[in-house]
């Protein structure tokens, strides 16, 4: 697809179509020819414990600390304290970035827990429509260039009708593109049951990366595969990755068959 055609489809101005947003994850940026195209919505899927949130943190910390690109981590299930503790265990110190205003952790989980006496009201606070409404206010008042939503599963759970869910998610993705923010959207999967929780997220996002966990007898083997990435060439092999101090490292020269 030409740069102009890509821009037309995505709503991204032509001059920005190949502007890259590196994740800072060693190996992953090599798989994507330099990072996500700016202003795109990128889906990360994987089972529990596969490293999705950590990948999101890597993405934001790299932008905030190395590229002067402020970011927002929107957590819908994990609390701020839990997230900060988890990050610390990987030697990612988020507090200085927060104090400098380069990273904002929005604890929607706390707001929901604080408020929600009944399911109807939780729906009001946590639905995809409510999330979009919140972002329309919040993004217009910040300089954020990067956004992580952890997780879209938590917001979508209150929309029971699949058609309605698809429409809401479609609206949210388009809204995020219009805002020009590069988004990493996380979705959970139940092991052995599809590639994403609702089986529609991958159609609406611009890219789709799956983190996998495989039981190899002595332990779990982690691997990553890019199943889709619009507007750019990308590596489509499955590569192993490790989680270490500082975050995720993808062994892009090694392949798993």
């Amino acid at each position: 697809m030409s740069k102009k055609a890509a821009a037309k489809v995505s709503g991204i101005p032509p001059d920005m179509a190949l502007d890259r947003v590196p994740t800072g994850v060693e190996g992953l940026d090599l798989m994507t020819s330099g990072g996500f195209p700016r202003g795109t919505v990128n889906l990360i899927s994987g089972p529990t414990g596969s490293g999705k949130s950590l990948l999101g943190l890597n993405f934001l910390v790299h932008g905030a600390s190395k590229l002067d690109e402020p970011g927002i981590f929107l957590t819908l299930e994990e609390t701020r304290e839990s997230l900060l503790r988890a990050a610390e265990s990987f030697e990612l110190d988020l507090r200085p970035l927060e104090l400098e205003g380069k990273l904002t952790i929005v604890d929607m989980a706390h707001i929901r827990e604080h408020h929600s006496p009944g399911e109807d009201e939780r729906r009001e606070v946590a639905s995809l429509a409510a999330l979009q409404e919140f972002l329309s206010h919040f993004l217009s008042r910040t300089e954020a260039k990067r956004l992580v939503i952890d997780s879209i599963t938590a917001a979508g759970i209150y929309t029971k009708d699949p058609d309605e869910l698809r429409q809401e998610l479609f609206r949210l993705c388009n809204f995020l593109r219009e805002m020009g923010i590069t988004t990493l959207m996380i979705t959970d999967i139940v092991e052995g049951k599809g590639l994403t929780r609702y089986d529609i997220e991958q159609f609406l996002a611009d890219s789709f990366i799956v983190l996998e966990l495989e039981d190899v007898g002595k332990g779990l083997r982690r691997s990553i595969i890019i199943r889709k990435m619009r507007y750019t060439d990308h590596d489509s092999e499955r590569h192993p990755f490790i989680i270490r101090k500082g975050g995720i490292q993808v062994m892009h020269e090694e392949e798993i068959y």
Partner: protein
Amino acid sequence: MPKSRSRTPDLGDRTATGAVLEFMSAHRGRVVAARTVADTLGLDRKITATLLSRLAREGRLVKLDRGRYSLTGGPGCSPRADAVRPRRALLSGGEGLWKRAYVGISAEVDRALGPAASERLVKGGPSQGHRERVERLIAALGQELGGRLALDLVQPILESVFGENGRAAAVRLCIPRGGGA
């Protein structure tokens, strides 16, 4: 008296649909007359009636009799539309109560949005009293989060400090008349 009263709407950056849904959300569990919605938000009554009717068809609101609507419907709804007409709730309380409210809301903002956002939102003049600080902070929260989410954050605290009046005041402060949330 003209059939359709309207004044210049002040919806901020929201659409009329967004403003109406926000208003209905703030009055969840109650019955609201279409006329009340229109007059409160400063919208044309006929347009508002059409909008509400569409939202009901889409299943986002429940249509009741005599031009009245509810977000949820059901037996918990008040039958009196007048009951939800926004009133300027007067919060009576000494500086101590306002300070409690301020401390409570600040702590919630700190936990929900982190230190930098909290600092940006809570800053105010040193000579401000706590009541003024609370009102200013809630207004800033409405701008930052949108009225609905701000209400979710603020309402339980004002209610715990000021009782039922605090609950009503939270609606007034987060979703002010004219819809400038």
